[in-house]
């Protein structure tokens, strides 16, 4: 069946093709340092997307997602560095560690919502951090775990970049399918009004557990990608700032979209690396950006663009970022 595509859809497809073409061409255009940052931003973007699936789609803002991704990374690191196991065992233990954390944390958090959810997830992330600095036998405490080698086949920086690009694009498509599936639509229902969803007969507690575990899966993948990129894992990957920066990236880029977190991650990664050349106080700058974005730019970059697009250029098209609840200008916030 052939149906004509709207202007909006055509523009989106065009941008996606351009983006992928740019991603594929990047190693021919930039230095190895910049490509390293690209890999970092892609992984950060996947991490921020997993946060946005919870925050922007289901209305469950989390401040502990790094606890899940780092559990996976520590699983890989432990097998590689302490046990000396091969790649399959590293990946298996990484996946199991990340998904176990996601499941346990999900069961803990599934009965809370709103600010309680934020508090509970924050505490969960902090507890993983506590383990990472104290459980020396497994985590190597402050020294972290070294001796984690990338698989030989994708060891070169540009090969690993392409591998990352492939995984991230595949995850992105999978996330796109999820958010447009009936499950994804019921998540939006959860975001707009949990009470109403329960009245309609949905088991909202189970729904929250599902989305938490699904988001945890993508966070797990981002953690595994990151540990092989750095070939190192330490408690700095679990600090609260690691989770908070994912939230900042999602909001800065545009919460409630999948492209937003990716844009946010690229902006933050590049700003951080450029700014760190000139000033030493990156956490202060990040805090200031955090406060300013929350005060004045909650709809983010994509939100601002889609405002202009749906109001000026293509009026009449359905704005996917519009929310039902009056007075709430940002999906999920």
């Amino acid at each position: 069946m052939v149906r004509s595509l709207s202007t909006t859809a055509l523009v989106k497809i065009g941008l996606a093709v351009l983006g992928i073409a740019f991603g594929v061409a990047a190693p021919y255009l930039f230095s190895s340092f910049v490509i390293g940052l690209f890999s970092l931003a892609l992984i950060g973007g996947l991490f921020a997307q997993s946060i946005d699936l919870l925050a922007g789609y289901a209305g469950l803002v989390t401040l502990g997602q790094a606890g899940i991704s780092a559990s996976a990374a520590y699983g890989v690191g432990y097998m590689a560095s302490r046990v000396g196991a091969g790649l399959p065992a590293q990946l298996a233990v990484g996946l199991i560690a990340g998904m176990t954390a996601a499941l346990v944390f999900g069961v803990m958090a599934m009965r809370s919502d709103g600010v309680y959810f934020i508090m509970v997830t924050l505490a969960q992330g902090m507890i993983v951090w506590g383990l990472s600095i104290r459980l020396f036998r497994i985590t190597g405490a402050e020294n972290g775990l070294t001796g984690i080698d990338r698989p030989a086949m994708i060891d070169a920086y540009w090969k690993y970049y392409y591998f990352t690009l492939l995984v991230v694009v595949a995850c992105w498509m999978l996330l796109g399918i999820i958010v447009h599936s009936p499950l994804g639509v019921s998540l939006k229902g959860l975001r707009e009004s949990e009470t109403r969803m329960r009245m309609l007969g949905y088991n909202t507690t189970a729904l929250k557990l599902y989305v938490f575990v699904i988001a945890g899966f993508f966070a797990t993948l981002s953690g595994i990608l990151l540990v092989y990129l750095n070939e190192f894992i330490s408690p700095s990957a679990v600090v609260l700032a690691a989770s908070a920066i994912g939230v900042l990236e999602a909001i800065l880029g545009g919460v409630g979209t999948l492209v937003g977190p990716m844009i946010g991650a690229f902006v933050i990664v590049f700003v951080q690396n450029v700014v760190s050349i000139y000033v030493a106080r990156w956490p202060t700058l990040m805090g200031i950006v955090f406060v300013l974005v929350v005060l004045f730019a909650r709809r983010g970059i994509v939100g601002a663009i889609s405002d202009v697009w749906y109001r000026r250029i293509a009026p009449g098209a359905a704005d996917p970022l519009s929310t039902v609840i009056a007075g709430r200008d940002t999906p999920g916030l």
Partner: protein
Amino acid sequence: MSPTWGWAASIVGAAGLVWWILTKMSVTAFFTQILNGLSFGAVLFFLASGFTLIFGLMRITNLAHGGFYLVGGYIGITTVRATGNFFLAMLVSALAITLLGLFTERLLLRPIRGLEKPEVLLTIGLTFILGDMSLAIWGGDPTPIPKPGFLNGALDINGFLYPRYRFFVIACAGVVGALLFWMEKRTKWGAIVRAGVDDRETIAALGVNIKAVFTGAFMFGSFLAGFAGVIGGAFLTLLPGQDFEILLFALAVVIIGGLGSLKGAALGVVIVGLIDAFGKALVPELSFFTLFAPMAIILVVRPRGLLGRV
């Protein structure tokens, strides 16, 4: 399960736990850990009571409370170094953090009043700024606040030695706690706060200037956090990252005890303080993790905490 059976099971469980702990350590060590837990819980009480007051009234989760604690402690150090007076440092820190609270509430939080999640996120951004600025001003070395002379050394109770200062901390928390309970139950301010926790709209309709009450509550909570920074900084030492560490404990207190109630905070600090002290003594490698199990159980069984009101 009926409440009676619940209580009975808790008491039997607690007795079993005490018996198990006593097989692991001497009676002296047991009492030392009890006092360690209570004195740490006392510091947490100053934080958690303000945190819970702000949340109960305004539904604002002030995650900058840990940052307020840390900055309060550092201001205390500077004051003690300049004047040599510990009690003056308490006052100066508490007042400075009160001003910081006023600034935060009026300039940063008021524009997004009612947007609960942005409010939380803003306070976390603020914590990063406060923590990094403290690192820039006071450096990264662990620093204890010098204690006043008469509180140095240990108190000898029939051969049982325990630091004087920690008794002082427990006594302070007892006095402040009693004062807070009295204020909540007996004064006009307490009545307004209790009514505000239950129904903000109605109390505003009755002619109470709810905005002023909000600002006052936020400042009072900040006052307690600054006070806690000095009193806690003198035996926990101050170092970068402690803002989030102490915040984790405060969150565990309100998650276990329940938000919006002073009783919940009081119960929570005792539980969290004791769990932390015995956890550190028995399984030092898992010191944060010991908070995890009780929190998980409470969240699944009573998502609003043991004595939560909101």
